[in-house]
């Protein structure tokens, strides 16, 4: 496996890789370290990459840094789970607590484009009430942003990514047509549909960020099914191939293999960032610093930046940096059918049921969840059968050989914020000499009640389609949110609705860390919508002299 680009950073000398052309380049504006740029953005995933594009298009000077490499998918990506581990954040992290979180493959990326390079492309809007769970539903905490505003930004992101989705979405307020037609359903998705109809709940084709028609220099999806380890044909609308080419065109500079280790402050304001690139430390001056490293690296950087002015870390007067880490429940039900399903074909989750996001009755817990059809690749599936079902030896080999007849449904469930679930620093250091994070997590009784309900429901759905040898996978989690949450009150949140830190006026956080609650849908669309909103707010505030 090649862990790194053998040739070092690629985005240098006034050019960046052209993601659409093997060996190709596109021009890129460059800035000196000594030049005080308007914005330095740490991280180029769903939050940082989207924001870099929108800020550059608004005329700001932008340098966006990513610790990972700048890939050209057409030539760099293999159809191979092992090789594609190069997309994951595999630097050491310590996990503990009652239910330690599995990190790396399914929830963190180390590439330009962040984890959107390997996300499963599911692009759902959060239910309106889930932006105000405290006042509308009596649990959690309200967002400082209303759903109507978020839904306008959802529409913007869906257009930008050319989301392929159904003509009519069964749940929630009326929404416009998706930009592209839905993809045909694979057999695994049809099993979800049949089960949902048998149980009397709605289902629909999953809105996904992979093209169902040509768009620009990208071709439609070829249904190769390796989506979760990176798309080698560019059909997937990751940040790498969607927002970042626009960002470059608008004048943003992107620095790959650039690890930011510390944010500098003077007299209560940020002055720039210390970053490691090509073997040495540099200092980029900036008028504003945006942290967009996702729910582990964002608090880690804020905590690692502690100094005499801010001894507890930056933006941390509330004491909440690193706290309220939320995963999403990712339990599943699996079974066997006579039919040849071959769930390795097509995007893994082509059908979705959001019934239990929108139905509050009949639950003995707070929160919502959705579930989707599945298509695990061999290593991922073998780890599930071994770890989740305790299979090894010939029993494992034989079960793997029945994979083409396996169907599964997997939930994305809302974990409630809990200050005890958190990211802190250890005394161990990494290859950059930076203290590594400790990630502490435990499920609550509410989480367990949701898991029990969801796995029972999904199991009944499989049963209704005739599936046999059914079993429940109880261990998995997905996604990461919280750890620098937004709110109305500086005592109970880290940033305000504009993603601006309460403590340091030119320090911003723009990624999944800012979620006060996480809802029952995959977070990427919401992160991108927040980034679009933040860019609009920054433009407005700049025009009013409020930056």
């Amino acid at each position: 496996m090649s862990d790194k680009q053998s040739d070092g950073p690629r985005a240098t000398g006034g050019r960046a890789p052209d993601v659409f052309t093997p060996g190709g380049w596109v021009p890129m504006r460059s800035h000196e370290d000594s030049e005080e740029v308007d914005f330095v953005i740490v991280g180029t995933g769903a939050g940082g990459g989207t924001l870099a594009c929108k800020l550059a298009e608004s005329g700001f000077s932008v340098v966006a840094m990513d610790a990972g490499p700048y890939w050209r998918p057409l030539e760099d990506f293999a159809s191979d789970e092992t090789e594609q581990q190069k997309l994951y954040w595999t630097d050491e992290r310590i996990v503990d607590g009652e239910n330690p979180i599995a990190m790396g493959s399914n929830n963190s990326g180390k590439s330009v484009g962040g984890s959107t390079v390997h996300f499963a492309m599911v692009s759902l809007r959060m239910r309106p009430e889930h932006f105000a769970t405290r006042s509308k539903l009596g649990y959690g905490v309200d967002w400082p942003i209303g759903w109507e505003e978020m839904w306008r930004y959802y529409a913007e992101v869906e257009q930008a990514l050319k989301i392929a989705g159904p003509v009519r979405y069964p749940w929630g307020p009326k929404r416009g047509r998706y930009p592209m037609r839905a993809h045909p359903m694979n057999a695994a998705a049809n099993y979800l549909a049949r089960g949902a109809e048998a149980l009397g709940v709605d289902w629909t084709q999953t809105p996904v960020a992979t093209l169902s028609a040509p768009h620009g220099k990208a071709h439609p999806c070829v249904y190769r099914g390796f989506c979760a380890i990176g798309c080698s044909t560019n059909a997937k609308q990751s940040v790498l191939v969607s927002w970042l080419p626009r960002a470059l065109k608008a004048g943003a500079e992107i620095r790959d293999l650039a690890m930011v280790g510390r944010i500098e402050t003077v007299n209560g304001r940020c002055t720039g960032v210390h970053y490691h690139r090509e073997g040495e430390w540099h200092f980029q001056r900036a008028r504003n610093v945006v942290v967009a490293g996702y729910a582990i690296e964002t608090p880690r950087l804020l905590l690692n930046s502690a100094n005499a002015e801010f001894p507890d870390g930056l933006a941390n007067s509330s004491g909440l940096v690193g706290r309220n880490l939320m995963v999403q429940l990712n339990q599943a039900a699996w079974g066997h059918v006579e039919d040849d399903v071959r769930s390795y074909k097509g995007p893994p989750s082509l059908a979705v049921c959001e019934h239990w996001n929108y139905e509050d009755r009949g639950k003995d817990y707070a929160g919502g969840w959705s579930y989707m059809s599945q298509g695990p690749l061999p290593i991922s599936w073998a780890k599930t059968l071994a770890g989740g079902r305790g299979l090894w030896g010939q029993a494992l080999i034989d079960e793997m050989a029945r994979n083409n007849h396996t169907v599964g449904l997997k939930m994305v469930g809302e974990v409630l914020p809990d200050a005890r679930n958190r990211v802190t620093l250890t005394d161990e250091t990494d290859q950059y000499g930076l203290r590594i994070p400790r990630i502490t997590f435990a499920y609550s009784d509410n989480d367990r009640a949701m898991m029990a309900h969801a796995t029972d429901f999904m199991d009944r759905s499989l049963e209704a389609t005739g599936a046999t040898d059914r079993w429940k996978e109880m261990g998995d989690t997905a996604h990461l949110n919280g750890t620098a949450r937004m709110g109305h009150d500086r005592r109970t949140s880290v940033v305000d609705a504009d993603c601006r830190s309460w403590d340091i006026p030119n320090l911003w956080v723009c990624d999944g860390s800012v979620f006060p609650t996480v809802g029952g849908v995959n977070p990427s669309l919401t992160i991108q919508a927040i980034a679009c909103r933040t860019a609009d707010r920054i433009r407005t505030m700049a025009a009013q002299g409020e930056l």
Partner: protein
Amino acid sequence: MADRFPDYDVLAKRDSLSWNDKTRAVVDARIATSEPDVLSEPERAVLRRLVDRIVPQPEGRAPVNAAALLLEKIAADRGDGYRHARLPKVREAWERGLAAIDTEARERHGTGFAALDNRQADSVIQAIQQGDVCAAQWEAIPADLFWSYRILPDIVSAYYAHPSAWSAMGFGGPASPRGYVRLETNRRDSWEAAERAPDAVVPASERNRHVR
């Protein structure tokens, strides 16, 4: 169990549109990987035996070099992005764990793990899986964590990285840029595996020999 996908070989598609250059390069290199010089020979013998019991070789197919691939990971001390607070890094975990397994075997059966017969080896593995172990070395590496964080994920990840394992499970294997056309239930593209079926007009092996 009889091979469900007789004569199906993912590698027959190596030169087709289902494999891009990058995939050819990484899979070629993987198949050719031999054991790196890491761990002691007795430790390696325990590891080989353990791998052989956790993931038995496919019958009638090219052998999977899972032990070599795992040793390569151990040599590189390559983590997965997270480490349980009570476990050391990959290489040290395996060193401690293999020592504990070997002692466990001697205490239970009077001989090292590598020399145990299948039934005895499996009984040691079951003891680790159930956390029902007696060797003192497990104090340095909790058996339940070594089982769930190292033994299972590391070994099955090595095994299912190999084309022989893909072929035996009827997986389509690498698929870029060609991808697939027939996504519906009970439909098969001509470059996918056919499964053995008693009432098949054309035997699966016949179809599989035409997979390109």
